[in-house]
């Protein structure tokens, strides 16, 4: 028994397959979705979507959005989503650094709009880095000595 999982971001189809379980960062906490789940419509928080199919596990970052759960299909409408294997670590690091710099600058200048925008940007790039480091090397095993904090 499988459930159809579709992850779309605003500019493309990210993932589509029949899977065993989907774990989502729901508004009220993590949700594990198995086949024959009751219909749920929920917003998503910044976080990680895990999809398991047979022995494989796929991990995606998501920056928020919406999920439509039907008994046999889960549709994730993400603001932005990315497969962990696609994350470019160098670029993510660069983006984090840039966000950090602008954040410091706007804090000293008291520019509230920029501050909030950059704070969100910083959270996003930190999440991507954490997740990439955590799941890419050794698929699911945490590397010794660098247990990443909860990505928030």
């Amino acid at each position, binding site marked *: 028994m499988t459930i*159809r999982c*579709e992850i*779309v*971001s*605003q*500019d*493309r*189809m990210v993932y589509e397959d029949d899977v065993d379980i989907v774990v989502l960062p*729901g*508004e*009220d906490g993590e949700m594990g979705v198995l086949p024959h789940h*009751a*219909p*749920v*419509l*929920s*917003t998503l928080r910044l976080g990680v979507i895990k999809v398991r199919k047979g022995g494989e596990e796929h991990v995606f970052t998501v920056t928020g959005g*919406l999920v*439509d759960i*039907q*008994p*046999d*299909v889960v*549709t994730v*409408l993400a603001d932005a989503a990315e497969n962990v294997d696609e994350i470019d670590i160098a670029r993510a690091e660069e983006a984090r650094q840039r966000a950090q710099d602008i954040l410091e600058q706007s804090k000293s200048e008291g520019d509230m709009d920029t501050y909030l925008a950059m704070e969100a940007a910083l959270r996003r790039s930190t999440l991507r880095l954490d997740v990439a480091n955590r799941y890419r090397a050794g698929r699911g095993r945490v590397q010794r000595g660098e247990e990443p904090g909860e990505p928030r």
Partner: protein
Amino acid sequence: MANAREVKKRIRSVKNIAQVTRALQAVSASRVRKAMERMFHTRPYANKAWNVLTHIANQPGRENLHPLLTTRDEVKSIIVVLVTSDRGLAGPYNTNIMRFALETFGKYEVPARFISVGRKGTELLLRSGQNVMADFSGLPAEPTFADVSAIGRLAVEEYLAGGADEVHLVYTDFVSMIRQDPTRKKLLPLEFRSAEGLVASEYAAGGESKAAYEYEPGEREILDEMVPRFTALQVFQAMLESLASEHAARMVAMRNATENATELAGILQLEYNKVRQQAITNEILDIVGGAEALAQSK
């Protein structure tokens, strides 16, 4: 028979036309490629968003959930969002969509007001005496969601304020380079519709969903946020589809024009040859006749 100089002049003008249409064809070819790419990128999200709206609309007890889901008892007036192009020379593109829109809504049982996107549509609607409530023309050649979200928002606000009891969307669906179909979608209220094109789902296909949704956080928060945004998104996608259709239609029209011009130039060239030959023959006859007369008079 026309004289040689006149024919030559026509050949030149026809060749000029062919040059212009060939250039337009090349421009459209590159535009249509870009437009198609954009359209295909956003299509999955827009389609899934439409599916989610369908799921919401098909659940039992939806009527009392939200004003945007409630079918009104009496439909007194409607709004039609019509997508056309700003510029002409696109073959039958604008004519087709206008004919479709006027056949469907021109003599609708209740008065229809139009939100027109595209200059051609506005002109044609006004000429046929329709009520145009808003005109969005002169949008950028490659519009972003931010550019067009106002259109969807206007429709939703007008609907909620009671200015209209239904909102329809009319646009040109891009099927392929040689086929674009005028299409209509009913945007508001969200009501039960067949789940055509949905992922094969024994629960959603063909019948009402058996269970109502649970909402996290609250249903009000989600629906307030989501329904207007997804409605605007449908308008955006319709615009991208229409843009790709417009450029494809223009490309085909221009290719036909170029072919016709080339053919016409060929025919005119033959004519010119004939006229020229005739003139030479006449001259030779004159000379021969003159020589003959001189010979006889000796």
